[in-house]
């Protein structure tokens, strides 16, 4: 391309883009409108296609309905599936579908939709969710049967995942790669209007909606008629938007901002139990953490209470085991839980041959007890690292912090270049234990490098030989008790999810339903005045 040609094409692109920009703003008055800001973890979702997404924002839960909804107490509630039944051998699941449901494009929702939908996951990043399903049989117009490859009591959890929002088959196949970008059609309470990647999604109320789940007070069309969901990367900017009324609700407020929030007259917030754990991950293949005694001493030196108070402003819970507290699997033998015990930590190190030097730092065979702590630049993680650094100094361990961006941290873990790392996971199922500690997942995500026959046997039983939910719970408890006894991690904190809103603009129910503030609560939010 010659220079002039290039210039010409650049200016044409610019002009066209500029015109498109100018055409985008048409304000519609008098209808109840609201603006939400997405949480920082949801920012950057490239599209709203649940099937091929690796990152989905709250937006997807508003456009699409799921077969089953999960509440915060981990109970399951019917939505597009009115009822379901699992055969005693776990090999057949039968779902009765709700009648009279239509997609935004007018297409009906019925058994054929499901028969089209499940096979669509083949080859997608979310394939594992329905991996155990061999095929879908249409029993009648509103009844489907999932024939399983293996028993999978966890299927019900998978179906309640936000990746299980059901798109309109016709629109999906017609739009191809553009589905979720230029259009997104579901059966949900909100209809897609426009989406600017990294900036905002605009939704309008689905006036035909009358099939809300029993988690919502309002089963019909949402009170908010026009909803904009903005993406604001900087937490302080998002907070200032809320304060000035530019945004009505923040989906996710960093804990550091809570004291500032509480000081504001017109702001209020709601919390939901957390969705993950902040913890320290050991690399058992790198000294000194190959020695279980050093791992245990490190674990006992961490004071979860102090971290909760200073880093998280007292919000959330101290974590003393690896799973979120709303999971029944988390109720392990209390004696095995990891609690702060400085004296015992020092005693363990003394016994292991680590002697204190003149400066108070420990040495063994001429080698100082000096380790690298890998962390990422996100505020809560960085602060946790700083305070752990100070706490480990008390047992004579010298800690150097290395802050990387999140992708480099993963690379370090994968290559086993770390010794100790501050990590955070977001997952509300016990199978996270398999993800991080199964031998099959070495070197990553099992970056602990933990290889142990007994542990792996317990893992296999929990993952593959549980026929019912109760069995699965018991098996996962045993699996975690084994892992925690080997001191493979130091649980630190269980965050809560904070949602802040402007009282002068929105009315948010006192009690939030669902595992996050998503569809179930969003339809109940009212615009004030």
């Amino acid at each position: 391309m010659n220079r002039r040609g290039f210039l010409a094409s650049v200016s044409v692109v610019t002009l066209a883009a500029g015109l498109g920009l100018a055409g985008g703003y048409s304000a519609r008055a008098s209808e109840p409108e609201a603006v939400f800001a997405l949480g920082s973890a949801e920012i950057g979702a490239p599209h709203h296609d649940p099937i091929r997404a690796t990152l989905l924002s709250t937006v997807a839960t508003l456009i699409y309905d799921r077969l089953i909804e999960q509440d915060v107490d981990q109970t399951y509630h019917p939505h597009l599936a009115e009822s379901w039944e699992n055969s005693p051998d776990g090999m057949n699941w039968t779902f009765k579908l709700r009648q009279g449901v239509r997609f935004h494009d007018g297409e009906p929702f019925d058994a054929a939709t499901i028969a089209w939908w499940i096979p669509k996951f083949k080859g997608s990043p979310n394939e594992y969710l329905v991996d155990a399903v061999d095929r879908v049989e249409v029993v009648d117009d509103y009844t489907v049967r999932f024939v399983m490859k293996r028993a999978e009591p966890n299927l019900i959890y998978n179906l309640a995942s936000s990746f299980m929002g059901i798109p309109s088959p016709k629109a999906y196949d017609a739009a191809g790669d553009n589905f979720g970008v230029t259009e997104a059609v579901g059966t949900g309470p909100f209809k897609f209007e426009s989406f600017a990647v990294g900036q905002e999604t605009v939704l309008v109320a689905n006036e035909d909606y009358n099939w809300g789940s029993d988690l919502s007070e309002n089963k019909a069309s949402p009170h908010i008629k026009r909803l904009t969901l903005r993406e604001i990367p900087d937490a302080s900017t998002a907070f200032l938007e809320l304060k000035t009324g530019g945004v009505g609700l923040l989906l996710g407020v960093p804990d550091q901002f809570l004291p500032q929030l509480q000081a504001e007259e017109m702001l209020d917030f709601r919390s939901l139990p957390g969705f993950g754990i902040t913890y320290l991950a050991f690399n058992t293949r790198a000294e000194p953490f190959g020695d279980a005694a050093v791992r245990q001493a490190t674990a006992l030196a961490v004071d979860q209470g102090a971290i909760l108070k200073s880093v998280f402003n007292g919000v959330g819970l101290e974590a003393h085991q690896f799973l979120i507290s709303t999971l029944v699997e988390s109720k392990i033998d209390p004696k095995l839980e990891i609690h702060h015990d400085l004296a015992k930590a020092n005693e363990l190190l003394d016994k292991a041959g680590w002697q204190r030097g003149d400066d108070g730092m420990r040495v063994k065979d001429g080698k100082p007890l000096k380790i690298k702590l890998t962390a990422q630049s996100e505020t809560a993680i960085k602060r946790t690292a700083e305070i752990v650094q100070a706490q480990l100094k008390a047992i004579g361990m010298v800690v150097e912090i290395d802050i990387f961006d999140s992708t480099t941290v993963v690379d370090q873990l994968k290559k086993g270049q770390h010794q100790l790392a501050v990590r955070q996971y977001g997952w509300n199922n016990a199978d996270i234990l398999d993800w991080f500690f199964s031998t099959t997942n070495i070197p990553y995500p099992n970056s602990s490098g933990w290889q142990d026959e007994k542990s792996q046997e317990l893992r296999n039983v929990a993952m593959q030989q549980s026929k019912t939910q109760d069995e699965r719970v018991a098996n996962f408890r045993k699996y975690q008790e084994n892992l925690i006894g080997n001191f493979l991690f130091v649980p630190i904190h269980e965050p809560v999810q904070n949602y802040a809103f402007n009282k002068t603009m929105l009315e948010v129910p006192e009690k939030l339903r669902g595992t996050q503030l998503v569809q179930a609560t969003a339809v109940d939010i009212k615009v004030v005045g």
Partner: protein
Amino acid sequence: MIKHRALALLKAVSTFKGGISGAFLLLLVIGALFAPWLSPYPYDQQDLGIMNQAPSLTHLFGTDEFGRDVLSRMITGARTSLSVSVTAIGISVLLGLVLGATCGYFGGTFDRVVMTVIDLTWSFPEILIALMLVAIIGPGLEGVVIAIAIAYLAQFTRLTRTQIMSLKSETYVEATISLGAGHAHVLFSHLLPNALAPVLVAAMLATGDAIILEATLGFFGLGAQPPTPSWGAMMSSGTAQLFIAPWVILLPGLAVALTVVFINLFGDAVIAALDVRAKFREA
């Protein structure tokens, strides 16, 4: 020559602007050098009982989110910020002098190729170059030093090259060359010493910019690894307490601004004192 420059420096300091800014910078350097002795508290001493406290007599600049003394952290932070930017600009100037002098003196294809690359990097935003390089080199101050050095390399190369080229065409240099003096002799004895003054002044002004760049990288969480403070890193963690502890973000910002202002004023004073041509005209 040396005497002449010392005189110019003296002259610069004797002006009002030069005096004030020189004094401030001197204080700052002393503070940075003797940080461990001047700080009222150890910069990494946490006290969770006194988090986010407003400035008081015991903590003149207040405390941060871990109850650490902000004043002590700012003094140590000055040390980080200054040493990073001075080292980076120092490396950059050395490389720039070598590259610029070679290009300006010899010219030709080598010059063309080098200058094309240099111009490209010059037109690229420093922040992008720095973010890219830090990602490659890894965390820590070394990465930031190298990134800043490369981001500013173009400026010094260009300046040196222009200086050398204009000096080269002066009669006395042409005479020296025609008398059969070696390239090295001409470059090092005649050209570089005369080209040095403007480059050094530019280096000083660039040190100010480098402090800002270091702060910006710190804002993105790059550079100084905790608990080591730098002004940028302090501002970065201060954003979360904007309303409950504004001093944590405001004071380091002011420190950056003041330092850079004084560096610029001092630079101006030196330029004024060095500017022989202007003095001729005014006489």
